[in-house]
C-alpha cells in the first residue's frame, strides 16, 4: 500500500476521535466502544496468520482464553499480582503453547494445523471445566475494578499497538515479504531461502500472544470468566467472519469487519437479548461475503487491497492441499 495524504488524515482523525471518546459519550456507549476495539484487535490478530500467511486457525479462542485465565489466576486472592504484571506471564504461557501446537503441525499441510488448533481449544474448554484450580464450569472471579475509562484506554492501546505492529511487520518489512511469499507459493518461497516453517511459527506465536493480551484485559474488565466465555468456539467464529467481512490479508479490513459485526451484535442484543439468532446472522454473513464481497469491505475502498478473494483461495487451497504446495 502506498501512503496517501487522505488516508493519513483519516487515520489521524480516527485516532483523535477515539482518544477523546470518553469525554463525548456516556459509560454505556463507552463499553460498546471498548468491545468494538477488542474485536477489531482480535480480528487483526487472527488475520496475521490467516490473512498474511494463509493458515486457517480454527481455535484462536484458545489463546484469548489462556491470556484471560492466566490473568485471573494470578490476580486471585492467593497470589494477588497486579494486573500489568500478569500480562508478560500470559504472553510467555501463550507463546509456549503456540510453539507446542505450531511447531509440529505448521510443517504439514494447512488441514493438520486447522484441526490441531480446533482440538486444542476444545481440550482447554474441557480442562478448565473439570479442574479445581480454574474454578470448573462455574468459572473464576477477578478483583473488581470498575473504571470504564481504564478499560477503554487499555483496549484502545492494545488495539493500536496490534495494528502498529501488523503494519510495521507485515506491510513494511522484509518479514512481511517472507510471510506473503510463503502464503502464495511455499516451494518457491523455500527456493529463495525462506525458512517457511520458522516464519509460519513466528507469525503464529505473534498472533497467539496478541490474542492473549486481549483476553487478559477482557478478564479484568468483565471481572468474571468461565470456560465458555473465553474459550468458546463462537469467539473464533466471530474473528473469522470479521476478517472475511472486512478483507482477508488486508491491514484495515479486520478493523472494519470487527467494528461492523460487533455493532450488529449489540443491536441484536438490545432488541432480542442473548439469542441464537446471532449465530444465524454469522452464517449468513459468511455466505454473503463469499458470494458478493469476496474482497471484503476494504476491497470496496481500495483497488490495491482487492486481493482478499485470491488470498482466500490460497488459504483454502492450503487447507485442502490442492493449492500452492505442488512443485513442478
Amino acid at each position: 500500500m502506498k501512503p496517501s495524504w487522505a488516508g493519513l488524515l483519516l487515520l489521524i482523525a480516527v485516532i483523535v476521535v477515539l482518544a477523546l471518546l470518553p469525554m463525548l459519550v456516556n459509560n454505556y456507549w463507552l463499553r460498546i466502544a471498548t468491545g468494538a476495539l477488542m474485536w477489531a484487535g482480535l480480528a487483526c490478530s487472527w488475520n496475521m496468520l490467516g490473512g498474511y500467511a494463509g493458515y486457517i486457525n480454527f481455535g484462536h479462542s484458545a489463546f484469548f482464553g489462556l491470556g484471560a485465565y492466566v490473568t485471573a489466576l494470578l490476580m486471585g486472592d492467593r497470589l494477588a499480582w497486579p494486573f500489568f504484571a500478569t500480562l508478560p506471564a500470559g504472553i510467555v504461557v501463550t507463546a509456549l503453547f503456540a510453539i507446542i501446537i505450531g511447531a509440529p503441525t505448521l510443517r504439514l499441510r494447512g488441514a493438520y494445523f486447522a484441526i490441531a488448533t480446533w482440538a486444542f481449544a476444545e481440550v482447554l474448554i474441557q480442562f478448565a471445566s473439570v479442574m479445581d484450580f480454574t474454578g470448573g464450569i462455574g468459572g473464576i472471579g477477578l478483583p473488581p475494578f470498575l473504571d470504564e475509562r481504564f478499560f477503554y484506554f487499555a483496549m484502545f492501546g492494545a488495539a493500536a499497538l496490534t495494528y502498529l505492529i501488523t503494519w510495521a511487520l507485515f506491510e513494511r518489512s522484509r518479514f512481511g515479504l517472507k510471510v506473503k511469499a510463503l502464503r502464495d507459493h511455499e516451494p518457491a518461497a523455500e527456493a529463495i531461502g525462506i525458512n517457511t516453517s520458522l516464519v509460519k511459527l513466528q507469525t503464529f506465536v505473534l498472533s497467539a500472544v496478541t490474542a492473549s493480551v486481549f483476553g487478559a484485559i477482557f478478564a479484568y474488565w468483565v471481572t468474571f470468566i468461565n470456560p465458555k466465555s473465553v474459550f468458546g468456539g463462537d469467539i473464533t467464529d466471530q474473528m473469522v467472519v470479521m476478517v472475511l467481512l472486512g478483507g482477508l490479508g488486508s491491514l484495515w479490513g479486520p478493523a472494519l469487519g470487527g467494528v461492523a459485526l460487533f455493532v450488529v451484535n449489540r443491536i441484536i442484543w438490545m432488541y432480542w437479548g442473548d439469542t441464537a439468532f446471532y449465530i444465524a446472522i454469522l452464517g449468513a454473513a459468511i455466505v454473503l461475503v463469499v458470494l458478493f464481497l469476496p474482497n471484503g469491505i476494504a476491497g470496496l475502498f481500495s483497488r490495491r487491497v482487492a486481493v482478499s478473494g485470491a488470498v482466500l483461495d490460497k488459504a483454502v487451497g492450503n487447507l485442502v492441499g490442492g493449492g500452492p504446495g505442488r512443485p513442478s
Partner: protein
Amino acid sequence: MSAAEGKTAGTGEPILVVRELHCHFGGIKAVNGVSLDVGRREIAGLIGPNGSGKSTLFNLISGTVTPDRGQIRFDGHEIGGRKAHAIARLGLARTFQIPAMFDNMSVTENLLAAAAEGHWQGARERAADTLALLKLEHVADNRASDLSGGQQKLLEFGRVVMRQASLILLDEVTAGVHPSIRRIIVDAIARLRERGTTVLVIEHDMEMVRNVCDRIIVMDAGRVVATGPFNDIVRNSEVMQTYLGRPQ
C-alpha cells in the same frame, strides 16, 4: 564481488557433482541413477524427452523434493536431503517449469522477496536494476497474477537474478514466450555468465541450446544417456533418435 567468486571458487572441483541419484513416485522411477558434473562458470544444457526426469532432477538438487538415495555436492557442501531454504542460502537459485509467482504481491515485491533472506543491503536498487534489465518497469506495481505468461517467466527469472547465486537452474524459462522476451532472457543469461555464475538450463528449443550452452547433458527415462558439446551430440544419431524420435 559476486557470490560465484566465493571461498571455494577457483579450486578444480566442479561446482555441482551428482552421483547415483534416485527418486521415485509410486511405481515411476523418475530419476534412476543420475550422475553428472557441472563445472564452474559453465552453461550446461539439460535436454531429454517429456517425462525423462529433468524437472525432478532440478527438484532434487534444489531440495524441493527429497532423494531416495545418492549424493549431491554443491560448492563443496554435501546437500542431498537438506532443506530447500538451506540449499538456497548456499548460493543455489532456480526457476520452476510452471511459473511460481507470488500472485498477490506486486512485481517489485516478488523481486524484493527474493532478497529478503540474504543480500538485503541495496535490495531496492537491485530490484529497480532487475526491472530495467528485464524490461518490466511499466508493470512494477502490478500484481504478479495480472502478468502475461511471458512476463511471469521474466519475473521468475528476475527473482533468480536477485538471489546473486553461484549456480542457477532454469527450467524451460523460454518455453512458449514471445521471441522478444526470449531475447531479453538470453541476454540476461549472458550477463550472469559474465558475473561468474554457473547455469544449468532445461530447454526444448535446440536453436536456443546451440546458441547458449557450452555443453549438453541428455537424459532419457531417468538416466543420463549422453553428454558433450552440442555438435558431438547432434552427430550421435542414436541420441538424437532418443531425443527427437518422440513427441515433445
